[in-house]
């Protein structure tokens, strides 16, 4: 059980059965008035945000979240299949819960799956993944009029901007936190 004194950015609590993460916290006290604890929170399942103001004495249930390392296996309709590295149990995660991570899922990629009450609610990929470029315009050497980047499609279907010298079939490293090109993988 948490009290208002435990409130801080990043704290995870349960409200109406859903896990929330505190994204903003401010202690307030209007002159001669009572202490108020203002928060903004994000629902960790559907991403909606919530503004709540609490008074002294209020309490919260912690949100028990667990991270498990899993391996990506394959996609089936709009669901993604993973295998728990420890139990070898296979689970299926919906596209909604996967979020942007779907752009970087290649076979056998190890990811961290966030579980709330035995249900997967989010997937975190490694900060950097290597993906093969399957489609991009050829580079015309000596072309100085063009821009310094061009669109490229990688094997997951994700489209990003890459430097002009990247060619189809090449392997590139992508920073999954920003979704941007990081470097070319040579060799």
């Amino acid at each position, binding site marked *: 059980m948490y009290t208002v*004194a435990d409130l801080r950015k990043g704290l995870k609590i349960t409200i109406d059965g859903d896990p929330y993460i505190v994204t903003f916290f*401010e*202690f*307030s*006290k*209007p*002159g*001669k*008035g*009572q*202490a*108020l604890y*203002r928060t903004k929170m994000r629902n960790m399942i559907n991403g909606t945000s919530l503004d709540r*103001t609490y008074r*002294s004495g209020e309490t919260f249930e912690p949100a028990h979240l667990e991270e498990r390392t899993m391996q990506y296996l394959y996609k089936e309709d709009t669901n993604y299949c993973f295998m728990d590295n420890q139990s070898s149990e296979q689970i299926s995660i919906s596209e909604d819960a996967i979020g942007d991570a779907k752009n970087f899922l290649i076979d056998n990629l190890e990811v961290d799956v966030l579980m709330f009450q035995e249900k997967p609610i989010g997937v975190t990929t490694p900060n950097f993944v290597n993906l093969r470029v399957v489609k991009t315009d050829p580079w015309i050497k000596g072309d100085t009029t063009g821009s310094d980047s061009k669109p490229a499609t990688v094997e997951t279907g994700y489209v990003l901007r890459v430097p002009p010298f990247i060619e189809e079939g090449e392997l590139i490293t992508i920073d999954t936190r920003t979704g941007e090109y990081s470097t070319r993988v040579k060799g």
Partner: protein
Amino acid sequence: MNGIRRFPNRHNSLRARAKIVHAVRSFFEKSGFLEVDTPQRIPVPIPESHIDVMPSGSWVLHPSPEICMKRLLADGLERIFQICHCWRDGERGSLHLPEFTMLEWYRAHADYFALMDDCEGLVRAAAAAVGKKYEVDWNGRVVGLDGPWERCTVRDAFSRFGGMTVEEALEQDLFDEIMVCSIEPMLGWERPTFLMEYPAQRGSLARLKAGDRCVAERFELYIGGLELANAYSELIDPEEQRYRFIQEQGFRRNSSKPVYPLPEKFLQELSGMPPSAGIAFGMDRLVMLLLGASSIDEVVAFTPEEL
């Protein structure tokens, strides 16, 4: 050593803070005030519903120098000011420290309008000390300091920003929430705002307004949404004061908060106090405002977490 300090600009903050404190002292000396230094460890505090004191042995650390300063007024001093540390348990946030610096001043034979004039002169003098003559930058906006400052009643503030009347807010026990979430952030942007005439029950030590007994002669100063000061035309009727203290004690008892005996010497001497006005002004916040600091941590030498 530098590696463990969280604010690289702290040396600059401390230099500016010293200039501001110096300007505050000069302002009051020029206005004929006597600087006093009252004990910070006292036997009992003023009973207030929402201020929790810190024990110090069998006594407490004062949450404000109010009791002793008013006793000096009763003793015949007419214009006094004090800059001192105060302690309030459990108050910690970007605008709060459990140990903070308070500026208080009192004027005998004056009401709270005289304190509004003092505030205007004081903030301008402090701003000039750090090279800000007519305006301050706060949260990306500029607040002008010259010209007469805005005076807005609590009643008007609720109807403009609160989404309900002040009576409705009190009835639904939402006064503080609406004040913090809807009203305070809107105050003092064009120019500083004196939010005045609080509901009578929100001014335990304030005199009620002569023509309207529903409101107390209390104001708070806001600049750019930041609350800087709380002021009263002081209540000087000992019986009425005792009655209000007992109500505050009752609230504390019902909320399972520590209840201290009444400050009897203060109540005794209150009958000798001339009509007066007094104000508590947050020094740390004044420095924050003038330096554009977003957290009180940036303007003090150490936070409790660093000790």
